[in-house]
Structures are given as structure tokens and as C-alpha cells.
């Protein structure tokens, strides 16, 4: 057996351990939940923060990144929370939508459109309330996600967040935005959001992660469960301040005939890990995962996904595009698992990166683990630079170099953007992409 000696506990690990000791008696949930937290904490004590020798985290060494972990943020007053929200700016300002607000990891019903949602078939409960009512079953996650270090860390600390349930057959005509905003002071957050789309319901959920400051550490988990025949789009936009460390997990469980689209645009944070775990729980379901990552300066952004085809006749599509400039680093890890009886699985994964500078760095790790014999699975991974011939063609038509480069980066991303297939999301994302490109030096 390969015994790896545990390195000395880091300052960040010690801070997390201490935080748990301080908070454990006040964390919500009954005995079952407490037991689950203790188990997760024991696992954390044994393994520490994930680091480069943990295969799933090899390109994103969270232990090395986190020099320290600030205390978990306390709930703000309504006025204070409002001020933080206002300072962050709105990604969907012009969009008619329902809004739910989470400030520093704490859900603020008083700032949220709870009544309007209830009137239209969506029940929203504070996560702590849901946990008290439903117990540890509420924390159940797909098998592929259970052993992950960040998922474990969220299980230890998740105290707040929300539980959003869309009633069966409800078709929302407006999107629901869940704003996750942090103040500029260094603090830790670890909320959990549960999204349950009932049978044959249809909804678009916009998750935005904004704000934060130097030293902010967030480790959120969004647990998405698409019911039978549901049509669900969850679009995540991460544009936090450059000093933050952002770890965000999304789990997606699909019942039969559900169609879910999980989109992630990662533009913010100095260090961000976006991980998605997809589990097919019923036949004839389809999941589309789209990723747009843009990094510059010394940013490090990781998009990691695991798709578990545990049942037959399901489809998964992944398109992930990464633009890397300056000395930034992009990471893509994508694993498709097809279980032995999951025949007729159709899984296609594509990832492409565009390197805009000599020092740009990109790590790509596509993996297929196929145990069934009647399946269609493919993956493609490319990494390249702006094509000088294309650039010359555009410039020969009078388009200045900077504008021509912008056009070509947009062209590179367009495949992923078009697949979003939702005007509201496309407009918001394109706005962010263009802002990013126009601030380029």
C-alpha cells in the first residue's frame, strides 16, 4: 500500500478545524445531519485540503492557494445586505425576473421575491429551515460527488442557503436569479442551494456570483434535481473580485426524460474551481453542459466535470471553451463514465482553448470510462492561438488589429454561446465577454 505521509497541517486547515469546533453546536440540522457533518469533518482531518497529489485536484492545488481561511461571515442586517447587493452591480438589470438574494452565504428572504414566486408555483425555504424539517436526506448527493473534498467541506459548514422547489407542471415565464454576493471584507462562505424542478416543470435559473475581496473564500454547493420530464436551464455567471478564492460545486441529477442545461461562465476570482457532477437517474434524459472561461493576469480557473451515465438511453453534451491571456492558467478536466448496463448512451465532450499570450497556460484532461458496449462516446480537446491568416484577412478589410482580435475571440466562443439558446443568458454573457475583451491591454 502506498502510504503517503500527511504533510503538516497548514494554517488554513487549522483555521477550518477551529471554525468547525466553534460552530458545530450552532450548525442547523438534527442528529442525522450532525452525524453526517462529523463524518465529513473526520475525512477532512484525515486528508486535509485537496492538493496536487489528489488526482482530481492535480492542476488546482487548493492547499497551496489558501494561505489562510478567514472566519465564516455573520448575517448582515437588512440595510447592510442591501448596500452590499447594490455595490455589486446587476448582471441582469434589464431583465424581468424573480430575484433571490444570498449575501455572504446568508439567504435574505426580505430582499427576495418570495411571494411572487410562491404565487407562480415555486416554494422557497431558507436552507436551515429545510434542513430542520427534512433532515440529512436533504444533503444526499449523487454517488460521483460524494467523495470530493470540496463537497465534504460544504457538508461540514453549510448552514444557510435556500431550498427552491418548482411544483410539477409549473412553467415559469420569467427566469429566477439567485444572486450570491459577498462584501469586500475577507470572509468565508459555504452556502448550499437546492433546486428541485418538479415533473414536467420548465424554468430558467440564473446564478450569479459577484463581489468579495482580498482573501474571501467561498465554497458553495448547488444541488440541482430535475424531475421527470422537466426542462431546466441553470446558467452560472462567476465574476467575483480578483482577490477571491472561489470553489463552486454543482450537482445535477436527472430523472427520466428530463432535459437540463448547466452553463458556467467563469471570468472572476484569482483562483476558481467550478466543478459539476452529473448523474443520470432515469432513462431518455439529456444533459447539456456548457462552459466559457476567460482568464488573464495571474488568474487560475478550473472547470472540472464528471458525467455519470448510470442508466441506459441518455445523452450528454459538453462544450467548454477557455480563453487564456497573460500568465493566467486555465484547467479543464472532463470525465464521462458509462456504467456496464448503460447501453445506448450518447456522450460527446469537446473542449477547446485559445491562448492569447506566450505565457498562457492550459491543462486539458478529458477522460472516458466506458463499461458498456453499445454506446456512442467521443471527446475532442484542442489548444491553439489566434490564426494569423484570419487576422490578416480581417485587417485587410480595414478592421484594426484589436477589433479583429476581439472578433476572433468572440468567434472562438460562439459555438458555446449559441448552444445556450436563451436570449437573456446569451445577452448577459456576451456583455460580460465584450467587457472582458475591451479592457484587454
Amino acid at each position: 500500500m502506498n502510504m503517503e505521509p500527511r504533510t503538516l497541517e497548514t494554517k488554513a486547515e487549522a483555521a477550518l478545524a477551529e471554525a468547525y469546533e466553534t460552530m458545530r453546536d450552532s450548525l442547523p440540522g438534527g442528529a442525522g445531519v450532525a452525524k453526517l457533518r462529523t463524518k465529513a469533518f473526520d475525512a477532512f482531518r484525515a486528508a486535509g485540503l485537496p492538493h496536487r497529489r489528489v488526482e482530481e485536484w492535480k492542476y488546482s492545488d487548493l492547499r497551496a492557494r489558501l494561505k489562510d481561511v478567514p472566519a465564516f461571515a455573520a448575517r448582515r442586517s437588512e440595510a447592510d445586505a442591501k448596500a452590499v447587493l447594490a455595490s455589486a452591480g446587476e448582471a441582469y438589470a434589464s431583465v424581468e425576473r424573480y430575484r433571490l438574494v444570498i449575501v455572504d452565504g446568508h439567504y435574505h428572504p426580505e430582499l427576495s421575491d418570495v411571494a411572487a414566486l410562491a404565487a407562480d408555483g415555486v416554494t422557497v425555504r431558507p436552507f436551515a429551515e429545510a434542513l430542520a424539517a427534512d433532515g440529512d436526506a436533504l444533503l444526499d448527493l449523487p454517488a460521483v460527488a460524494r467523495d470530493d473534498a470540496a463537497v465534504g467541506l460544504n457538508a461540514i459548514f453549510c448552514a444557510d442557503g435556500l431550498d427552491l422547489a418548482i411544483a410539477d407542471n409549473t412553467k415559469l415565464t420569467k427566469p429566477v436569479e439567485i444572486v450570491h454576493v459577498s462584501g469586500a471584507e475577507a470572509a468565508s462562505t459555504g452556502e448550499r442551494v437546492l433546486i428541485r424542478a418538479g415533473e414536467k416543470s420548465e424554468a430558467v435559473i440564473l446564478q450569479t456570483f459577484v463581489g468579495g475581496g482580498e482573501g474571501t473564500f467561498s465554497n458553495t454547493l448547488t444541488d440541482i434535481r430535475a424531475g421527470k420530464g422537466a426542462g431546466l436551464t441553470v446558467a452560472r455567471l462567476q465574476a467575483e473580485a480578483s482577490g477571491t478564492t472561489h470553489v463552486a460545486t454543482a450537482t445535477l441529477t436527472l430523472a427520466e426524460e428530463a432535459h437540463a442545461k448547466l452553463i458556467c461562465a467563469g471570468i472572476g476570482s484569482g483562483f476558481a474551481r467550478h466543478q459539476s457532477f452529473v448523474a443520470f437517474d432515469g432513462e431518455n434524459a439529456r444533459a447539456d453542459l456548457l462552459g466559457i472561461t476567460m482568464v488573464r493576469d495571474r488568474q487560475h480557473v478550473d472547470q472540472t466535470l464528471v458525467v455519470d451515465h448510470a442508466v441506459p438511453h441518455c445523452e450528454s453534451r459538453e462544450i467548454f471553451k477557455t480563453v487564456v491571456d497573460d500568465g493566467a492558467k486555465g484547467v479543464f478536466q472532463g470525465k464521462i463514465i458509462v456504467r456496464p448496463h448503460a447501453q445506448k448512451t450518447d456522450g460527446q465532450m469537446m473542449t477547446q482553448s485559445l491562448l492569447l499570450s506566450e505565457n498562457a497556460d492550459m491543462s486539458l484532461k478529458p477522460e472516458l470510462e466506458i463499461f458498456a458496449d453499445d454506446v456512442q462516446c467521443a471527446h475532442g480537446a484542442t489548444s491553439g492561438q489566434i490564426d494569423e491568416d484570419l487576422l490578416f484577412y480581417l485587417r485587410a478589410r480595414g478592421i484594426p488589429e484589436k477589433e479583429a482580435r476581439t472578433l476572433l475571440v468572440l468567434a472562438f466562443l460562439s459555438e458555446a454561446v449559441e448552444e445556450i439558446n436563451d436570449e437573456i443568458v446569451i445577452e448577459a454573457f456576451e456583455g460580460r465577454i465584450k467587457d472582458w475583451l475591451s479592457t484587454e491591454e
Partner: protein
Amino acid sequence: MLEIKNLHARIADDGTEILRGVNLTVKPGEVHAIMGPNGSGKSTLSYILAGKTDYEVTDGDILYNGESLLELSPDERAAAGMFLAFQYPIEIPGVATMTFLKTALNAQRKARGEDELSTPEFMRRVKEKAAELQITMDMLKRPLNVGFSGGEKKRSEILQMALLEPSLCVLDETDSGLDIDALKVVSDGVNALRSPERSFLVITHYQRLLDHIVPDVVHVLSRGRIVKTGDKDLALELEKNGYADYVGAAA
């Protein structure tokens, strides 16, 4: 309009000399044809005029309306009125044709200190020119040149030329890959643009194109030099006798 003086150029990467002293003067309103065998430097000349950095000018100069072009970037040359119709128009997936046309047109207008075109005015112009070149709106909805046939790509080049209204049009083997009908459409498109202020440099292997776009002057380029200059009858002679006489002359 255009004065090329003792132009020497080589491939920047490996130093291979391509142009060995080209001299050429094109006056406003004139159509000059450049013919010559493969490898004589025809396409290189067109790329150097447009400002491609794969080539390095080692001697001589290119004057455009009396000013040297050599220090100008490709987009500055375009804004000054230079247009190169590419031999192999490039496909750019993800860039919508209309977006491209509008961006190019407005970039040039901006560079010249003119106002941007309004969308309705832009659309009106595109529709009008596209119809003349038998380009459907369906084609314009596609990404730039993606899925276009060889002939469609060449018509798309002429459409760009018609919209951008350059004063010097360099056509690099615009006839290659065209069937007879398409050749007619493209030539008509070019002829419609002829005016006393606009000059053309038509690069071709074959005399066929020059039946449609009748040149004022015909040059033979061989081994990086112009070895013979004549009127349109020179093209006919070349068609009959080939380049053999001139390939030797340049050596």
C-alpha cells in the same frame, strides 16, 4: 495612383527572395493585368501590397497616391483605399457575414473620419450589391465564407469590394475555381465598379478572365521581375505561345 519602384522582397521566415526589382505604375482608372507562370511572384506581390508580414521588403518602395505604403498596417492600407480580393478567401466560423461587413465598412469610415452607416442604410446597400452578384440573403446569414462554394467565395469577395468602394482593387486569381457562368457574374461585378478614379490590378494565369475584364496594360511577371509589358493583345499571344519565351528572358 500606384507606383511600385524597384521592389525587392523575400519570405521573412527563410529569406527566400521572391521579388527582384518590380517596377510598375498604374494610373487612375486603368486596369493592369499581371500574368505569369506559377512561382513568378504574382501572389506575393498582391500580399505585399496588402501588407502581409510574412514578407519582408528589402529594397524599393510602393507609393500610393504619392505616399509610401510600406509603414502602414493592413487596416490602414484598406482605409486608404486598397482592396485585395483573395485567391483563397478564408472561412471564419463564428463571425457572421453581416457583422463582418458592417464592422469592416464602419472601421474604414471611422479611420477616414466619416460617420458610421446606420443599420437601415447599411442593409440597403448590402441588399442592392448582393442582388447584382446573385448572392442570396441566406448566404449572408451564414458565418463568413463558411460552407460557400468556390464561386460563392469569389462573389463574396466582389461584394466586399463593392461595399467598401476602394480606389485600388487587386484581384488575385479571382478567376480560379470559377465556372463560365460564375466568371461572367464576377466579371460583371468588377466591370460595374470601373470608373475614372478607380484602378485595378488583375492577377491571373489565363487570358480567359481578360476577355471579360479588358485590361489597358498587360505585364508578364517572371522570376520576380516584369519582363514584358504590352496591351491586351499580349495576353492573347501568351495564351497561344505560353510563357516559355519569357521564363528564359528573366534568367
